[in-house]
Each structure stands twice: as structure tokens, then as C-alpha cells.
């Protein structure tokens, strides 16, 4: 259901260099890998100390209202999407 509109999308990035698109993907993959590694390590350490991790699934406010998460998010997006603020022309 959530993809109904997506089916009608055009090729919005037709002239954007594939190399820049791959830069975005690679930057993202790097971030995801580093985070997953750190998360795995943290959860192991915390569980070993006997702490319940249930709070991780509790509802939270938007990052808009939490300056620490907001700053972290904006820095992350800036790193990942840097190539999109002045992309080269594709072939």
C-alpha cells in the first residue's frame, strides 16, 4: 500500500552522475556497517551486565525535540548526502 505513489515516479536523477549516486550509497553503507558493529558490541556488554533492553522499543518523540539526536541526525545526513549538494553531470 505504501508504494502506490512510488510506482508513478519518473527518473528524477537521469542526468546525475552514477558515480555520485554510488558515493552516496557507499557513504551510507559505511555508516550502517560502523553502527551495526558498535550496536552489537554495546548490546553484548549491556546484556552481560544483566540490564533489560526493553526500553529500546519504547515510543520516543521526534528528534526535532531532542537536540542531541537532532545534531547527530543532521551531521549524519550531511555526511551521507554530501555528493548531492553539487553533483556532477552524468553521461
Amino acid at each position, binding site marked *: *500500500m*505504501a*508504494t*502506490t*505513489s*512510488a510506482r508513478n*515516479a*519518473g527518473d*528524477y*536523477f*537521469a*542526468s*546525475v*552522475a552514477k558515480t*555520485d549516486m554510488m558515493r552516496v550509497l557507499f557513504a551510507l553503507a559505511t555508516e550502517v556497517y560502523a553502527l551495526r558493529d558498535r550496536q552489537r558490541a554495546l548490546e553484548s556488554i549491556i546484556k552481560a551486565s544483566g540490564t533489560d533492553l526493553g526500553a*529500546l*522499543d*519504547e*515510543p*520516543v*518523540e*521526534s*528528534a*526535532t*525535540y531532542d537536540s542531541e*539526536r537532532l545534531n547527530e*541526525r*543532521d551531521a*549524519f*545526513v*550531511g555526511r551521507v*548526502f554530501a555528493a*548531492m*549538494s*553539487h*553533483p*556532477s*553531470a*552524468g553521461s
Partner: protein
Amino acid sequence: MDLRINREHQARLDLVEGLKVYVAGNVMPALRQDFEKWCDEEKPTDSQLRDATYMHAKFDDDPLYQASRGLQRISQESMWREVIYGLDRRKEAIEKELDTPSDAPGSLTLDPALQMPVYYEKNEFHLQPGNYHRNTIAGPIYEVGVATYTMHRYGKAGDEMGRALVSVMPPKKYQRVLYMGCGPSYKGYPVVNALPEAEHWGIDLSAPMLKYARHRAIEHGHPINFSQMNAENMGFPPGHFDLIYCMLLLHEVPKKAVVNIVNEAARLLAPGGVLANLELPSYSSLDPLSAFLMDWDTENNGEPYWRSYHEMDLLATYRQAGLKSQLIEAHSEWGGAKGNYMGKFKYHVTMGEKIGA
């Protein structure tokens, strides 16, 4: 109703919002800077810059333009996907809560036989999957989605537009007030707060939106009467209201429906009554680049009538309906204080007074 979603889903949604913020704060300024440099060099005329064909020839193959528009589109698709995934976990509980009857002040009247107009049935406004009427929890989806869509610039209460409208309302004694196309209705709370003695009504085509609106109004202590109706043909007697208003409704319907809605509102107004329509600023009041970028939404953001609305003479439509009309600018905290890709702006309020007071 607590619309907070769990940490994992909120993190996904935060990332989507972060992308929107990045587009607005980094990509669009870069695009504007390039555009201004190009204008300095090429010196196009204002009429050329107002010509869509000319602007498309300039921009369509521009990588930065494509990046800005492509990211805007995919962030919008991702936003709805993540909101729906986040709320779907609680869908049954939300439905149960919305279906619980209440005898709190105010009311809810649904009309299961109401025919949806074709323009409404076939569209997904702002790309919201299932539109406003085909998902039982469309109201909560809309509220969480729109907060992200607007990067929380309507304020935590989501009522910035209502406050802007109240700031320009003619001082009169309003006894009965109608909010057309009210959706979840929270944007109108400032009007309700400003007129506590008045009887407040809200109408909308969508039953799921109205159920949510009723539930939300009860939670906030607002005795609003909600009724499922088409604004083109409402079931109230002539002269029933002193104030009728709408916000971002008329750009969502075709020209013929705009005319019908204005005529119907004029019929329902008592002599001296006021019709107030709050919208984003017209193309002509914006710089050419902002107007061109706004127009992109017509084909790419579930806004098929955006262009035709901005091209019509609404003041003339008001006059033809027997309303003394004028265009008033209303302060926007969003556009005025923080700006967005359009630069600074004020809302446009088309204000009409029924002649014969």
C-alpha cells in the same frame, strides 16, 4: 492519543526528515546560488523567468536541480512509508480507540452514502498512500506525516496556519463558525480558542479523518461538531454561519469545484458573514525560481490542481458569489522566521464579506 512511535521507526522517520532539512538547507541554497550566478551572466528577462518552458529548458537536465527534486520526491515517498510502518503496529488499538463512542460536548455525523468526487477518489494528496479516506487510521498517519513533511515548522501543536488566520480575522461577533475541509481539525484550534462562545462545525469528505478529528477534539476539550459532507454541496440551511474558513483546501480541487465551494459558502453565510481562505502565496508574489519550484508539486507531489488554483482569479470568483473580497497577507512563523526553499513568505488569505449586513 499518543502518536509517538517506537525508537526504531522514529529513527527512520528522523532520517527522512533530516534529508528534507538537508535539501532545504543545503541543496536548495546551492541551486539558488547557481541560478543567481547564471542570471547575472545570461541576463534573462522577468517574463522569460516566468515562462515554464524557458525554465524547464534551463533546469531539466541540471544535475543539481535533479538532485533537489529527486531527493524531495523520494523523501516524500519514504516519509509516508515509514509513518505507516510505524503506526501499523498499533493499528488495531488506534481503530478501537477511534471507534469508541463518546457523549462529550460536540458531535460526529458520518454519511456512508456520501459519494466521493472523482478528483478526490483518484488522488493521493501529497502522495499519502490510500489518500485521506481509504485507510482507517488516515488521520494519525496525516498528523505524523505532515509534521515530518513540514519539518515541524508548523509548531509542536501543528496549528501555525490557524494562528496566522486568527491574526487577520475581522473583529466581529461570530456565533456559528464552519471549517471546510477540516481534516483532523487541529489547524483550526486557534480559531476555536479565539471564539470560545461560538458554535463550531467542521466538515470533510473523509470519515477516517472526521473520526480522528472528533477523538482529538474531545481530548483537547473542544466541543466541535463534525459532519461528513462535500464542501461543494453542504446540508446546512442558507445564512446559517457567520464565519466560514478553510486552509489549504482550495488548491486541492479543480477550478469548477473551487467555484462551487465559494458559491456554497456564500449561500451559507448570513449577511455580513465572512469567508476566509488561507493558502500559500501566489506564484506572482514569489520570485521566479520559487514559483517554478512550487509548480513542480503539480506533477510530482500529488497536487494536480495546484497550478490551476494559482492561475485562477479567486477574488473575481468571490465577487461573482456576492462577496466583497480582498487579499490579505497573514504572518507566517514558518516562512517569515525560518524561510524554506521559497524564501520568506506570508500566507495569502482571500477574505470575503457577504454583502447585505
